[in-house]
């Protein structure tokens, strides 16, 4: 029977190297998700204002990240911005910047949508109790908005994790790149390595993303009780 290339993973330090690559992927993704979420909440709150200028700037920002592919943003920052400003940024740092900005743009839209979907009566009810602006948001609107944000946020987080596979193209050695290196170096010894290695990477992405879906599901169940 044809060897499925599973055993190549356990050759030498391959297993350990794949995990190190996974750590790079996870690090870029999670730092970006955290920064993106914090910025996104601020952006989302600012988008409930009536100020036309703030809304316009936010609109341009969001559309820019929606329209221009993430890969192009990575190139703009890695090759463009660094040469224009004559600074030196590592691929990891550029990845974190771009993914954070992307996350913030999308998160801002999720927060805005959740806040605006709340019934208007909730605001009036809070005001009628004498809550000030801050208290109204903190005790009444944000807790309800968070419940509505969970599905969109988890979806965004998994998309960000998956899209980190693009960072290979600006020279970051992530889990996919290490997979490629392993396949290339063992081409003669293990001709079917690509199946085993990519299959294993598939499994690694799965073990990062699946718990997120589960957390989201559990939270939704808990709040719907």
């Amino acid at each position, binding site marked *: 029977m044809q060897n499925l290339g599973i055993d190549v993973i356990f050759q030498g330090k391959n297993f350990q190297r794949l995990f190190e690559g996974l750590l790079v992927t996870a690090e870029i993704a999670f730092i970006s998700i955290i920064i993106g979420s914090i910025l996104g909440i601020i952006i989302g709150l600012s988008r409930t204002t009536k100020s036309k200028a703030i809304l316009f700037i936010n609109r341009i920002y969001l559309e820019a990240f929606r329209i221009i592919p993430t890969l192009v943003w990575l190139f703009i920052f890695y090759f463009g911005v660094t040469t224009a400003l004559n600074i030196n940024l590592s691929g990891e740092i550029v990845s974190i910047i771009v993914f954070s900005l992307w996350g913030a743009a999308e998160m801002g839209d999720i927060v805005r949508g959740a806040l605006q979907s709340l019934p208007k009566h909730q605001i009036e009810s809070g*005001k009628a*109790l*004498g*809550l*000030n602006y801050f208290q109204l948001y903190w*005790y009444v609107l944000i807790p309800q908005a968070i419940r509505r944000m969970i599905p969109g946020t988890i979806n965004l987080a998994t998309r960000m994790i998956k899209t980190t596979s693009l960072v290979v193209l600006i020279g970051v050695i992530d889990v996919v790149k290490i997979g490629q290196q392993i396949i290339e170096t063992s081409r003669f010894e293990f001709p079917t390595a690509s199946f085993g290695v990519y299959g294993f990477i598939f499994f690694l992405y799965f073990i990062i993303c699946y718990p997120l879906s589960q957390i989201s599901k559990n939270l939704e169940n808990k709040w719907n009780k």
Partner: protein
Amino acid sequence: MDKNNNPVLLEIQDVHKEFDDKEILKGINLSLHTGEVLVVLGPSGCGKSTLLRCLNGLETIQGGDIKFKDMSFTEKKANWQEIHEKIGMVFQNYELFPHMTVIENILLGPLKVQKRNKAEALAQAEQLLDRVGLLDRKDSYPRQLSGGQKQRIAIVRALCMNPEIILFDEVTASLDPEMVREVLEVILGLAKQGMTMVIVTHEMGFAQSVADRIIFMDEGKICEESEPNEFFTNPKTERAKHFLNIFQF
């Protein structure tokens, strides 16, 4: 007992309200005395709910003035927090906060706005809940309650702020008929205790029994102002007669 001799708590002077150039309130004059129960009646769209919303500052007014004691609503530095605290409101759609339990809903205002002592506020909340027969539901979430229960909780929530006036905006309008009574009885109980209230309702029998004075509004104006018995048996204006006829089959 004539409550007209009591001190004036809320003074409404020539109030005008516009939405997009459409005038909803066309000069309302009214004074509310301490302990008085005022019922506002009128056809849909006559401006009665808008008037009520102006009375606790949810809507801004374009002309005239509203004064609660000596606090003017039109002053630039109007103390809205104190006005909201002293003038409670219960809405048609029992807007409890869905992510909080009954007791958390009730205590939010007293603890966060009024910064009261927790034990003391809790004791009052429990006593009020007991009075409306819902003490056993204090840890329930709003979605676990019936409409009538939610509305009674909303009344308790307003009461627990120790307001001097409570505004009721068609509080039974979205309830199933069999739940209307339990809510109206709570309001009737408050009237007996001397709570000052302004009530907008379509329940005519209730209006007649709870009101000290009836205000009949139409097209943004007060058409008629009279004692409840007189209003229901012998309305002065044609419009009021027409309005009352709608309720008789």
